[in-house]
């Protein structure tokens, strides 16, 4: 039986185990830092930083990025940036442990080409990045940590993400099935 699993399916944690541990991690994070986890904030910091290096004046004048520029330290000196660095390291650790770190490859549905998959990945990323700024966070920051702390905003974002996901899933079905 084990042979069948390993040949057919990667060895992942039981999803419920992952969920319970993730829930405990959220509690631990709130217990230590008083706030939740996050991810999109780190990309935002990266955007502000690079923009600030290339065009400092325009960045500080920008109504949005200007909020995150301070004289004291770089926008990269941010809790979420360090946390995201940890996410990357943690993913690497788990990948090494379960033997999933391999050379670059692409996950896609059986019916599309690699090129198409990458184009849609970029489009999806753009949309997600755009939306995460309106939603004040992404799935981990707003939906997961937000709902766990009973924040109204977190629940709204969670329902909106999954609701629209199901709503638009039909349009993108060729990508995945």
């Amino acid at each position, binding site marked *: 039986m084990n042979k069948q699993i390993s040949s057919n*399916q990667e060895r992942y944690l039981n999803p419920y185990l992952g969920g319970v541990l993730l829930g405990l991690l959220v509690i631990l994070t709130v217990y230590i830092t008083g706030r939740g986890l996050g991810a999109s904030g780190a990309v935002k910091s990266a955007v502000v930083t690079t923009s600030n290096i290339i065009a400092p004046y325009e960045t500080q004048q920008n109504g949005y990025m200007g909020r995150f520029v301070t004289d004291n330290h770089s926008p990269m000196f941010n809790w979420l940036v360090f946390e995201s660095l940890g996410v990357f390291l943690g993913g690497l650790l*788990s990948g090494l442990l379960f033997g999933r770190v391999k050379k670059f490859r692409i996950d896609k549905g059986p019916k599309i080409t690699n090129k198409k998959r*990458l184009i849609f990945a970029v489009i999806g990323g753009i949309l997600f990045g755009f939306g995460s700024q309106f939603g004040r966070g992404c799935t981990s920051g707003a939906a997961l940590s937000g709902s766990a702390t009973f924040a109204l905003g977190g629940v709204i974002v969670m329902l909106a993400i999954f609701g629209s996901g199901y709503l638009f899933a039909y349009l993108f079905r060729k*990508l995945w099935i």
Partner: protein
Amino acid sequence: MGPLIPNGIIPAGWDFVIAILLGIIFGFLLEASGFSSSRNLAGVFYGYNFVVLRVFFTAVIVAMTGLLYFDYLGWIDLSKIFILPTFLWPMIIGGVIMGIGFVAGGFCPGTSFTGIAIGKTDALFFTIGLYIGIYIFSLAFPLFEKFYTSGNLGNVTLTDVTGIPASWFAAAFTVIALAAFWGTMFIEKKVRKNIKEYKF
């Protein structure tokens, strides 16, 4: 007792060390649960893999009930934790856009980082997309500056808005989630019969 850093039990200088450590656990759990694969993630919308739903909702209900117990036992002070501010319409629109991005890209920001870590090119492209998306948002910000802050309800919780105690929400979420777990189990079985070739 908690939260430790806002209460000054752990000095704020440890903030970043703790951030990396918590991030590592977070990344490890995401990857180990299979969130580094866009096929797994997108599967939730097509009924062939409900791993996202299972992990995500188990995490939410465990965290919800756990925080309530911790608050009761005096280990954590729920009044001192950060509550995400609510901006009604921007959040709904943002969520809808994120949902489309999720189906199209197959990742969300946190999972794409773990995807890069184990060598997924699509995760890398998704992250580049994220970067571009946020940059576009910043440039176009003056266009929707008013909308961005509209519907501001402040840092409100469900209890603040509805007046129903938080524990009722925790219980309701748990019942819904558990029902969803059992329900999706049957859906998944049915859908997978039709998909012959399935690789993660």
